[in-house]
């Protein structure tokens, strides 16, 4: 069984698992890091959104073999700086965004990346930008997601 090495939330990890197992299951079922959630397995619901070298991606649709030793994977567990929450996490608490909370790790990771993207492209975080966020929230917290993302963006 092949060994795969990469950086997960700042720590180097090595796992023995078949090449084609999707990274989501390596993270959740083998490494026991459960922040990224399963919601579809086909890259449409975005509940597992995490960061690959600082960019948003969905580990349900990436085989572990596509990740190399130099790659850094960040899940929601690695977003805060120790006990100091990321501004987006803080904004999420202040706006009481989460209802059940199941999609929210992915929503927060997506919001951070979307803010980075629109800043880099010189765009506003407006209705068009939010309409590009595909993460589904079945509790329907979309308005609070928008408010919190705007507040979080100001402190990023």
């Amino acid at each position, binding site marked *: 069984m092949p060994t795969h090495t990469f950086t997960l939330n700042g720590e180097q990890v090595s796992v023995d698992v078949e090449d084609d197992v999707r990274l989501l299951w390596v993270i959740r079922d083998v490494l026991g890091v459960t922040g990224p959630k399963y919601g579809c*397995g086909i890259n449409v619901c975005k509940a597992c959104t995490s960061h690959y070298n*600082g960019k948003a991606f969905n580990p349900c649709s990436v085989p572990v073999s596509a990740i190399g030793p130099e790659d850094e994977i960040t899940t929601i567990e690695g977003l805060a700086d120790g006990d100091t929450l990321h501004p987006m996490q803080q904004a999420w608490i202040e706006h009481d965004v989460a209802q*059940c909370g199941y999609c929210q790790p992915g929503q927060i990771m997506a919001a*951070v990346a979307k803010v*980075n993207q629109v800043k880099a492209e010189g765009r506003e975080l407006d*209705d068009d930008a939010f309409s590009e966020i595909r993460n589904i929230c079945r509790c*329907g917290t979309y308005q609070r997601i928008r408010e919190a993302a705007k507040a979080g963006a100001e402190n990023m």
Partner: protein
Amino acid sequence: MPAHRAPLLRPRPRSEDEAPHHKDVSRRKFLGYIIAAPTLVVAAEIGRQSLFDAGSAFGAPNASAAAIPSPPQPAELYEFVDSYRDACRPTNGLLKVVVERDGTVSFALPRSDNGQGIMTSFAMIIAEEMGIEPEQVNVTLADARPELVFNQLTGGSSATYSIYSPVRVAAAIAKGALLDAAAAQLGQDKRTLQTAGLTVVDTAGRALPFGELAEKAASPVTKAVEVVLKEKNDFTILGKSRGKDDARAMVTGKKQFTMDIQVPDALHTVICRAPDLNGFPNGTPANIDEVRGMPGVEAVEMIGNGIAVGARTTGQAFDAVNALQVDWAPGTLAGKSDADVVSELRAAELPLAVPSVVGTTLEQSFVHHARNGSALETNCAIVDFKDGKAEVWAPAKSPIAGQKIVAQKLGIPMNAVTFHVVPGGGSFGRRLFNDHVQEASEAAKAFGRPVKLMWDRANDCRQGRVKPLCTTRIRAVVTKDAVASFELRYTGTNMEVDEGFAEMITSQAIKAPGGNLGISEAFWNISVTTPYNFGVNTAVMNEVESGFNTGSTRNVYGPDTCTAREVMVDRIADQLGKDPYEFRAEFIKNARLKKVLDRAAEEADWGKSMEPGTAQGIAVHQEYKAAMACVVELDCRPETVNRKVRSGRTGPRVTKVTFVVDPGLLLNPLGYEAQMMGGINDGIGWALTGGLHLKDGHFVEASWDNFFYTRQWNTPPEMNIVVVDDSDFPDPGGAGEAGVPATMAAVVCAWRKATGKEPEYTPLLHEEPFPEGFTEYPTSPPIPESPTDGLEYTYG
């Protein structure tokens, strides 16, 4: 028996304008018990209130010169939430607020929290009565407790309404007992003492920790205690916004859902299911041994609903499920499509029965398509079975029935099953059922290993429970200035209810006006009203055995019947040449609904000038002891309707929602508003985009890019939710489902106005071609294969 009054409470003078039809619950004495225990354990019994004491929750009649009064309907006086509250009364004495030896206060809530925030609001309720802070109350979800009988069900937006008072009573008695113990120890008059933090303090500032008092306040024998509850005017916690207690855990990934719980040696387990809805395997798969040898696979066994596969990772279980070669028997709807089911419903529709009277007859008919009941967390459960005992973890809303199912499947006594209720990742009615608990039990027995069973998304959509496909018909007879008769008929594929819920309704239905009905009909009678003075007013339902797997899915009959009613109300207003808002204001039956309607019209600037192709829509609803009014603005212009989102449904866009709700007693404004927001987004989805297509015996929809629940590109950029904080109604009404019906109705009313067309079905886009990029996933193999190109879609 020692009776006491909690100190520092002033009787509130009865104000002149207090609605006389509402009993002032807070000034009555309540009975509870200090339970025989080594530390302070308090339980409430509220068994003495008479039935039907709710009176009319909706206030004084709304006077109108022209309207022909309609007699009261059962649900105006006695709703489902009343029925459930009554079912809980005999066992409220088993709900316990405990002051532990370490001074902490704890309460095991016998309900299921799937995002409603009830763990937070019950901490607030207990803290309010005890004079402590909510974060000092440790609220957990109770394990299944069969002795609670009906008092451990979560559904119908009844969680808070059903046990708000008993929990307050238990908390108030706990506080009184602590004060008694402190008074004895300090040699002081109890009336000079109060709680502060987790201590009792006297006027000199001396403080005794609860931990020191807990054992002294305990009683060696169970004794009855009478108590008076805190007045609303003295509330310092209830009525003020509070974020969720688990907010930090949720944003850091630390909140544990069922599949996040680590159980040693557990196998990640997925079921291979049939292509047809409710199909089943004809014998063992030909290649079962080959699949047993696939990478990561550790067990493959036949169980009731298919073939269970257990593997080291969920992904490897998916692969093995897809590799199985199975001969499937046809399902319960084999070969059928939507149109076939609609024909069956049409054939079963009941006649409109009121004899014709003089006036203009308006008729209307809708098909309301089935809706996906999937939560974001798919159906899941853990069962660990060894040495004749089982431990279960699941997000269950009917855990006592679940515990019974586990015991039956494993062949062990119920008391050998410990059933932990885990906070769920959404419910919307799904978690009232224990289908997955049954499967996990069967798999655990077959594997001889602990099982972490999770449904894959495609089958959660296709084989999971759905909101029933139904029709509504209305006939109204309109005179020159009023409505002489209003007849509503609902015909649906049968609504299934969980065993625990069914027993509860059966036990209570006889008490409802017109009782002794079947379960669905009983539920209909105590949930559906037409809140207008429309003369002869009838609302009748019937259901057809159908072969679907159904469930309530966030508001049972409300959204579809409300939509049908409110569209007809607009048509009647048109007929009479009246404005839709002014017509409603004139004909609405009661003061509470009139008040929210007026407020919504004002907040939304009803009647303002709108661009061609856009329109406002207005609708009202009453249910769960709450009154709701919604005004939406809908944009049906081509440039909006034809927006492109990759493989996403766009169409008409709701650009603004104004939603006004009178919730009864408001406990946590922030949490209540959140529930309305969720319900509003559901209502928009059910009106426009979210419907299931049955095709050749299976649902087409297998993912979130197939089933069009509201997404960011559909949700309104503007949403103004007004939660009335001075309701006349003294109890907290239901919140979880209250946002849906009026919103769905207002959107359909706005669409009718913007397009000039008469709607005939919901969702309104149901017959549109699927959007560009839509993927129709095969039913065999059963699980769509996970892509491998995820790194091509990164951003940031």
